[in-house]
Structures are given as C-alpha cells and as structure tokens.
C-alpha cells in the first residue's frame, strides 16, 4: 500500500526566544492509504498540535507534512482552502455543526463548497447518511438530535466529499459510552466500506481499540507504536492499549 500521509521530522515551538516550549519534537511517522490510525497521549503531549498542523490550521516550525507527496506547508490562500475542501474531512469533539441548518443541509454544505452540482448532492448525502445510520435524522436540526447522532452527522459531513484523509479530534470526547460505541462502529464501517483513511486523536483507550494501529505520543515525541495483529480480538487489543497507557501515564523512575 502507498503512503498517503508522511510526517517528517516535525517540530513545533511555542513561546518567544527566552522561553521556548516544544510541542512537537522531531516527530516522524507515516499513514498508508486505507489505514485507521489512532494517536494517543496524555493532555499536553502534543496530539492536538500535531492534528492542527496536519489539517493546515497551524503551521510547523520545522519539518514537513506530505499528503500524497505534496508538501502542505507550502500551500497558500486559495490552494489551502481548496486543499481543505477537496482532500480533508474533519470530525471534532464538539461536533461543529451549524445549528441553524438541518442535518441534511449540514452534510450537503461541504459538497456545495466543493462545487459539486446540485443534482448529485442529494444522492451523495443519502448514501453517506445510510452508512452512518442517520437517514431518519436528516431533516432534524442539531438541537433536536442526541450527541451521538450529531457526531454521526459530523462524520457523514466529513466523508461525504470522499476526502483522502479524515481527521478526527476526540470524536467521542463529548459522548456517553453507548453513543461512543456506536460512533466508533460507524467509523470502522466507513474505514472498511468506503476505504476511508482515518487519523484519530483520542485519549480514550476504548475508542482507540477500533483503530488498526496506535501511535503513542509523549512530550512531543513518539513514545511507542502498536499494531493490531491479524485475528487479534478488539478486546485483546484494548488490553494492550491500556497496558501502554498505564506506562505512558508515568514511568516508575519518575515517581519519587
């Protein structure tokens, strides 16, 4: 499989000359096409910074991010907007739906922005909604839906444009466990049926267990990486994730 996303020696500093904080410290990894990758780490480990830099919301201080071989740090203005609308899909912790618009309109909007003809929009929206099990909710407003439904609408909006990469930032952060489970099922289904490449940031081990590979970050560096073996049950994978997170949370020699 070809490499879709490459992060090469990424560095990001905050602050001024006298007081520099490294949010990302020489971080490198890559994601293949069709992969479902989770990024885990404690608060302040740099996961969100990483996601922001990949999603072009923020810029790296040094290093490169390549998407299909293209250096996204070199994009400017219109190219950048075009890149976002054509190649990326976003899912956020707090849904980020437009509350004045119905679910259907929210999903359709990203197609409109991309310039998809009106005739094709309806069909595409319905297909995405069906995959995510929200066909019944399409005419509702965000305020009339549950958190889980809203997040699935957001997911539908993210994938309806067939982006090369779906970025999910704590997608289950605002959901209860039942809604989390069904959302993660939906994401896995997206990954499998639509062959969507998903990069998900989370600190919830349960949500992470749906991914195929987990990258652990600590203090802006890669701490370790675990891959879900073939035939490994999700339960077993989950246990391994929990093991790593317990180590990640604080190594023994740090406890005085």
């Amino acid at each position, binding site marked *: 499989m070809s490499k879709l996303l490459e992060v090469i020696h990424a560095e990001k500093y905050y602050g001024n000359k006298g007081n520099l904080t490294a949010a990302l410290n020489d971080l490198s990894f890559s994601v293949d096409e069709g992969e479902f990758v989770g990024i885990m780490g404690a608060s302040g480990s740099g996961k969100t910074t990483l996601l922001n830099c990949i999603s072009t919301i923020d810029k790296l201080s040094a290093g490169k991010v390549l998407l299909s071989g293209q250096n996204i740090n070199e994009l400017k*203005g219109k190219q950048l907007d075009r890149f976002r609308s054509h190649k*990326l899909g976003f899912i956020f912790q707090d849904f*980020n739906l*437009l*509350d*004045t*618009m119905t679910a259907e309109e929210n999903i*359709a*909007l990203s197609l*409109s922005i991309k310039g998809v003809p009106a005739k094709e929009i309806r069909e595409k929206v319905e297909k995405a909604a069906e995959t995510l099990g929200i066909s019944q909710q399409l005419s509702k407003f965000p305020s009339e839906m549950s958190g889980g439904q809203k997040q699935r609408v957001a997911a539908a909006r993210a994938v309806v444009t067939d982006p090369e990469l779906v970025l999910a930032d704590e997608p289950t952060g605002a959901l209860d466990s039942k809604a989390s489970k069904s959302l993660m099922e939906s994401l896995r289904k997206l990954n499998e049926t639509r062959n969507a490449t998903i990069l998900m940031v989370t600190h919830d081990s349960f949500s992470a267990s749906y991914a195929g590979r987990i990258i652990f970050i600590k203090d802006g560096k890669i701490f370790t990486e675990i891959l879900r073996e073939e035939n490994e049950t999700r339960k077993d994978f989950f246990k391994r994730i929990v093991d790593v997170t317990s180590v990640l949370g604080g190594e023994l020699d740090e406890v005085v």
Partner: protein
Amino acid sequence: MKLFSLALKNIKKCRGDYSIYFFTLIVGVAIFYMFNAIGSQEVMQRIARSGNENVQRLRSLIGVVSVMVAFVLGLLIIYANNFLIKRRKKEFGIYMLLGMGKKKVSRILICETCLVGLISLGVGLIAGIFGSQFLSILVCRMFEVDVTGFMFVISGRAILMTIISFLVIFLVIMLFNTGTVAKNNLIDLIRAEKKNEKHILKNKTLSVVLFVISCAALATVLCLMGFFGNRLEMIPFFSCIAVGIVGTFLLFWSAAGFLQEALGRAGSFYRKDLNSFVVRQFTGNINTSASSLALITLILFVALTFFSTGFSIRTYLNKRLGNATPVDVTMFAEGADALDLMAQQNVEVDEMFDFYLNLPFYTSKYITIGGTLGEFKDKAAQTFRAARWDARENVMKLSDYNALERKYGRDELKLDDDQYAIVCDFDLLNPFNEEALKAGTKIDLGGRVLSPGYDKPIEEYIMMSGMTAYLGCLVVPDAVVEDADCGFIKEGSVFAGDYREKGREISYALDEELSEKLRILSEPVIREDGRKSYPLTMTLKNEIKDNSVGTSVIVVFLVLYIGIVFVIACAAIIALKVLSDSIDSIRKYEILTRIGADGQMKRKALFAQVMMNFLIPLCIASVYTWSGLSYIKGLLRAFGMVKMGAGIVMTTVIMLIIYGGYFITTYEGCKRIVKV
C-alpha cells in the same frame, strides 16, 4: 476608585465592538443640539428679517418636535443598551461567581453608564456646536444669504435642553441595567450565552398561507393609494393605515417560513456555494426579530415620506418665489385710481419709481363672476358656498394686460375681436373655469357676444402674492371696452412699479416709507352697495420673499430633523443587531473555514447577510413611500403642488449618506469580528 477603573477598563475593552453604539449616541446628541440651537443662530435673523415671527415659530415647533425626538432617541438608546447588556450577562455572572455582590456589580454598571453618558454627551455637544455652524453655512447656501461677518454662536439654552434630555435617558438606562443584574439568578447570567436557537415556524403551510395573505392585503392597499391617490374620496385612509401596519407585521412573521420553503426548493441556487448557509442565517434572523424588522420598516417609511414631501415643498416654494416677484411693488386700487390715491397721500411716484405701470380695470353690469362660469356656476357653488356669484367681475383691456405681461416677462395673449380670456391663479376655481371655457360659454354684453379665445384659464397672477391666490380677471379686446353699449365703467387700477434706488437695504427703507404713507388706505371701507372693500391693497417683493423663505426654512428644518433622527435610529438598530449576530457567528465561520470554504466565499456570504438586513426593510419602506407620496400628492394638489422629483432625489442622497454609511461601517465591523 477600583470600581471606576474597572468600569473604565470595560469600556475600553468594548470600544471596538460597540463603536457603533458610541457613534450613534454622539450623533444623536449632536443633532439634538444642532436643531435646538438653530433658532439662536445669526443666520436665521438674516434669512427672515421682517419675518421674525417665523424664527419664533420655528423655535417653538422644534421645541415640540424635540420632545418626540428625545423619546425616539431614548427608545433607541435603551434598545441598544439592553442589547449590549444581554451580551455581557456572563461577565456579570463571573463577577458574582468571584464573590462580588449584586450591589457592587450594579455599581460598576452605573459607573459605566455614567462614563459612557458623559463621554458621549461631551463629545456630542462639541460636535453639535461645530455642526450647527456648518448647518448655518449650508442654510445660507440654500437660501442665498450673504455669509460675510458671520459670528460663532453657542446657544446656552440648547446645551441645557440637550443635557437635560440625555440625562433623563441615561437615568432610565441605569435603572434598566441595575434591574438586569438584580432580577437575574447567577445561573441565568452564567448560562445566558447558551441561548436556544429558535426554529422557523414549524407549520410551513401556515406561514406560506399567512405570507400570501399579507402580501395580497399590502398589495391592495399600496395599489389603491399608489394609483388612485389623487382621488382622495375613494380611499378609506385609516383602514389603509391599519391594514398596512398589521400586514407589515404579518409579512415579517411569516416571511422566514415562506422564504425557506421557496428558496429551499430552488435546488441549484440553494446548493451553490454557501447559499444554503446564508438563507438559513437570514431566515433565522427574520424569525427571531420579525417584530423589530417590521417596526423598522414602518419608521423608515415615515422618514422617507417626510423627507420627500418636505423637500418637494421647499423646491416648490423656491420655484414659486423665483418668478413670483418681478417688480418691487404691486397695488390694487378699488373705486379709485392708484396714482390718484398715492398723490393724495403725498407719495412722489415719479421720484420713488423709475418704472411703473398703472393699468385701469373696468366692470360691467353684464359680467358677473357667476356669469363667466355659465352653466357650471351651480357646480362651483357647491364648493364655494360663501362666494358672491352676482358680484361684478374685473375686466382688463387686452393691450393693458399685455403690457403687464411684458413687464412680468411672460407670453402675451392674442384675442380676436369677439373673444375673451380668463386670468386666474386660484387652483381650486380653475377646474370650473376650464370646464366653462371648454364648453364655449358665451358672454353677452347687451348684444355683443364674446366667446372663449383659450380653452383654459390663464394661470397667471396680476398682483404679486406669494402663496395666497387672488381672484383673477377677464381680458377682452380694447374695442369691446371702448364700445359704449357694453356698459363698462372704470372701477380702479392695478399698479406695478420698480423703485428708482436699487439695493436690498434701501428697498426695505422704501417699503417702510410707502407702507407708512398708505396705511390709512388699507383700512376697509363700506361702499354704497353695502359691500366691504379695501381702497388700496399693496404687496411688496421683500415681504413675499421673506415670508416664503421663512416657511421654506421651517419645512426644511423640521423635515431634516425628524427624518434624520428616524433614519439614524433605524440604521443604528439594524447595525447593532447585525454586529451582535456576527459575534454569534464567529464559531460558524470557523466551522466553514474547516470544511474548506475559501475567504471569498465567506466574505460573499457575510456581505449578503449584512446587505439583506439593511436592504429588505429599506426596499419595502420605499415601496410604501411610493404609494404614500402618491396619496400626499393628491392632498397637496389643492395648493398646486404636483412634482415630487426634487424631493425624491434629495431623499436618495441623504439616505445614501446616512444609511450607506451605517451599512459600510457595519460590514467592515462584521468582517473584523468573524475574521474573514
């Protein structure tokens, strides 16, 4: 002191967002001062030297109107303030969460209101003092008054009035503000920001039906007034107003549902770029503020009508003035010759005037006022019940009349030997005259029969008159008057003259001298036939001009004052609403950025949103104004005013400046807020 500095900091912090609020306050204060001070301005004394009563009248009228204006401004400021306070509820909640008592929070608010009030009052007054000088110069231009040696005048009375009015307004605001803090619980304050989005009327059918009904009702009223405005008797005025008001509110209440339904179906439009977003934002906005939008529309309508009508009246007055005073003096002597009368009163006519005409007029037992109307006399009698139809009509020789026409710079009349013409500038009588002339009404002078030489009355004056219309006269060929069989006797004369000495100052002195000498003749006398008559009636160019300018000034000032305040109030409310909505939209535009909307798309969406908020009330109000003006035109026709063009042009210019200014400022402010 800590309180004070916190309040000061808050104001500084808000300066950017609330600049429109500040600006409106300052403009409000300045305008209030400017118009209250105008009576004291030197320019007014210059414009209307003999018409000092006009300045007095203007002053007292502006005083009355100011109460109304203060009320409108007060409502505007209270509305704007409540709006801003609502946005800051969370801030107050946090103060209280940190342990500050309600009383202390209230005190901070009072402190803030005082500061805002004092700053805007101070700046507004300074702006107003300079503005009133500017206004004076503008007025001089408008009425062609000499501006040399102009004094800088500050009106203490106006300052006092402004301060009192605005202190009352700020006091009311203080009560409102402290009330907001006092009556709300902490939880309400903290969670105030999480307002529920109201959704469009669920019942789509109902809103579509209501929309169609209100449109139909409004269209009926508008067409009725617009197309049949000149037939006043056909229009049930108060029902029309009632339907208009109710219809406007209904229109806005149902518009959101209707527009969403209509535009949502237009797939290729709705699904293009951010159109669906813009439509949703807009319909949502109409939905939450339908009532205030309707009110704004109605106020704008009043302001636009005021502007257009006022400026039209001014243009009419100025135009009428332009050709209403071709000579310095005109006189009308009844029962004697004007020259003889003046000689009796020791007026040295040849010394005083370097040019004059003294034209005799005649009466005949065969020609009465009623007689010239022929069979239409009875119809006219229904309108003019008190008229004396059997009174003799004044008659002038054609050659005499044409001499007057030449002096006045008008076209001469041409009549055949057996023809006559009617000269009359009384607009209410002229329709009857015209009917009689069209019907070819003949006048029998004891055997000699005259028929109309023109099929319309000649709408000219013989005496200069400004606004009031004198009854006219009949013009017949010279030979007819000289024919002894027709029974003409000399009744009196018309005098028109120019002073030998020219110049504004000297002419006033001469006016004075002439009036003094002829005063005794202006008293009415009872004639042998029991009729009351005035031996000599005199009209003076200066008097007419001053009176007309005085009226014109009053009209223009009242119109500018009320109109501008109304328009500013509307524009400011829309601007504040749009700005505060844009603060709510920050998040939405962030989302749009994330899903790939480019800068241009977002700017377009924002522009459309701001524009619709400003334009829709204005458009609807403009349509209303069109039909309203047509009705007013009908009302004013009695005074001979029919052209509204000048007023509409002037209104458009003013609207472009004020309304357009607010629009651009608001758009720029929104762009800054949502960072597109």
